[in-house]
């Protein structure tokens, strides 16, 4: 199994990185881009076959280590 975790800043939290990307794209002439945000994706290779159980474990991992829930939120997808 694979767990794919998207970690992004919560709405309202300053994303200096995203801003700088948007700015740089507009300098390069990509005026159609009005805003940008940057987040992380973490991909885990996992043993086991029970998706629900895996999801619960991954949720725990996010709370403990993978996301900083003071400023970040996360989304988990489990794939075969």
């Amino acid at each position, binding site marked *: 199994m694979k767990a794919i975790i998207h970690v992004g800043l919560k709405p*309202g*939290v300053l994303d200096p990185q995203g801003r*700088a990307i948007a700015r740089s794209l507009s300098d390069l002439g990509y005026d159609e881009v009005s805003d940008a945000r940057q987040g992380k994706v973490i991909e885990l290779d996992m043993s086991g076959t029970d998706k629900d159980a895996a999801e619960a474990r991954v949720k725990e991992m996010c709370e403990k280590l993978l996301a900083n829930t003071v400023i970040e939120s996360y989304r988990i997808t489990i794939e075969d």
Partner: protein
Amino acid sequence: MQAVEITPEIVAEHGLTPDEYQIILDRLGRAPNLNELGIFSVMWSEHCSYKSSRRHLGKFLTTGDKVIQGPGENAGVIDIGDGDTIIFKMESHNHPSFIEPYQGAATGVGGIMRDVFTMGARPIALMNALRFGSPDHPKTKSLVDGVVAGIGGYGNCVGVPTVGGETNFHPGYNGNILVNAMCVGHARADKVFYSAAKGVGNPIFYVGSKTGKDGIHGATMASAEFDDQSEEKRPTVQVGDPFKEKLLIEACMELMATDAIIAIQDMGAAGLTSSSVEMADKGGVGIELDLDLVPQREPNMTPYEMMLSESQERMLMVIQPGKEQLAFDVFEKWELDVAKIGVTTDTGRMVLSHKGEIVCDIPVAPLADDAPNYDRPHEPTPKRPQIMTADIAEPSDYNATLLKMVGCPDLASRRWIWEQYDRTVMADTVDNSQSGGDAAIVRIHGTQKAVAITTDVTPRYCYADPYEGGKQCVAETWRNLTCVGADPIAITDCLNFGNPERPDIMGQFVGCIEGMNEACRAFDYPVVSGNVSLYNETNGVAIPPTPAVGGVGLIPDLNYFATLSGAKDGDTLILIGKTDGWLGSSLYLREIENREDGAPPPVDLQVEKQNGDFVRRLIRDRRVNAVHDCSDGGMLIAATEMAMSSRTGLMLTKPEGSCLTNGWYFGEDQARYLLAVDANSVNPILSTAKSMGVPAIEIGTFGGSQLKADNHIDLDLSKIRATYEAWLPTYMES
């Protein structure tokens, strides 16, 4: 505006007592609206108003020959001659760092830098004083990791060297870590800027980042005691953008080189509120702001949110009429937000408009003048009995004891920390390969002058006896500056304590201040800036009293300075100062005997001064090769550090008639220094010392690759070094 009825609950949520609220009602002659209440609440929070501490801070010596600006401005300013000034301050970011260590520490660094460059100084050095809980506590490791990364992440990016600091571990900080950051900057004396808004009808400019909903109520949070729920509440912490900060520094420096700025103030805690109120109050003017013009990060922000937001990297300035375009040009060049958001007025009122309505209209003066000023009850800390050295058993194995000491959390090498900080950027850090020294040395760019900087406090002494501990922390900074050959000039401080509403805590606070002040006066070493952090307490358990002191001195000529490395084979080790073998409240007692008791070593300020002046004289006369003071762990630890740093062995000989052996090695008697000198300088130095009444004795010889002491110690220096270097990385990687 939607009218919110101000209930007693809302008042309490704003951290205002019924009495405080009554003063607001009296001053306004009506009930405040929510915006006005918010503004009063942040201005009268402990953090902004210093309501529990103000009357005691007033006791400090704050003036002197070299003081250009004492406490009261964003940072203190001292004169270092030739038209140069040094501007510096220390500040806490304790609570945010506990909740989100990386961003909390990073924004702490960013905030203290703004305090310094807002006064016209280019930041040239950063320091930090850190206290963590017990290494065994489950949170400690990740807090250390996050805080250190945050400090480095911000300072490194901005390109200001982080040159030193201190780090301690103690269970007393398990629930409340301390992150104190200090910034030192340099400005020409005719280019120092102040915050008093002057004149009427002058434009007010907002520059820097946009305002978001960050850390609203942060200032009130920093003044409220923690409970276990606060981790659940997860208040929004601010995120720093060091890239913006760097641009802001360059843009401010560029505009400051012109005559466009009348007054300038960074937006720190309580953001737009405290910056605008302070500027208006100091200048005795009124202020009118149109909040629609404030650059906003999110749509539909309310006046309340805008006024209380703690978004980082923002400044407020009063611009000379006619120079508006110049200001726009500079900030636009640096790609920063810039807006003219208001004007100064002659009404003495703060008037805010938003979407065509007046959303706040209050007199400025009461916000500052009527801020509560409490005389909180305080009980002196009971004196502890003195512990007799003879009552402490001698260790059976001094080799093992020394290794245990150098490898203990409070003495082990901090390399793992300081290698994450860029210490050499700006290319003025002197002797950059050496970071275990007593004080950092940073050259004034393009000159042969340098500032020496140190931060110190020994909380176990302050806990045992606040008054003696208060004297000691000031004395230790003075001593550390002396060790590098600097003339100590002035200090900043960061007073970290528990809940001031408890008389025992308030007693610690008052005791420490009085002790510090006595030392400041004895050394003519004034306080020019500082910060107070109270309510560092969880579930009724307070941190040990921790008045961190940041000392700054001047090395007038870099041909004459010293560090703890530089001892050569054949050099003699001289001990300056008297050794009684004081073990009460010592690190030895704690680490080896598991006891944290006894009176701390007394500090005789006259003796400190006499011994220190003597050592500085020798450095200036280039008669010493290396210098180190004796502090935590006593003489043997200091001597070992000198040997390790100088990469040469050392043979110590205990003089006849000296105190008991464990006290001789590990006693923490004050006012002591170790000097490495050429063998043929020994007699002249000893005889000069004698003639001046300075205790001085020869206690060892450098050379070889071992550390030996009488028949007690015989260890390879490499083994000691391995133990010393191992603890922190092993701990962090376990």
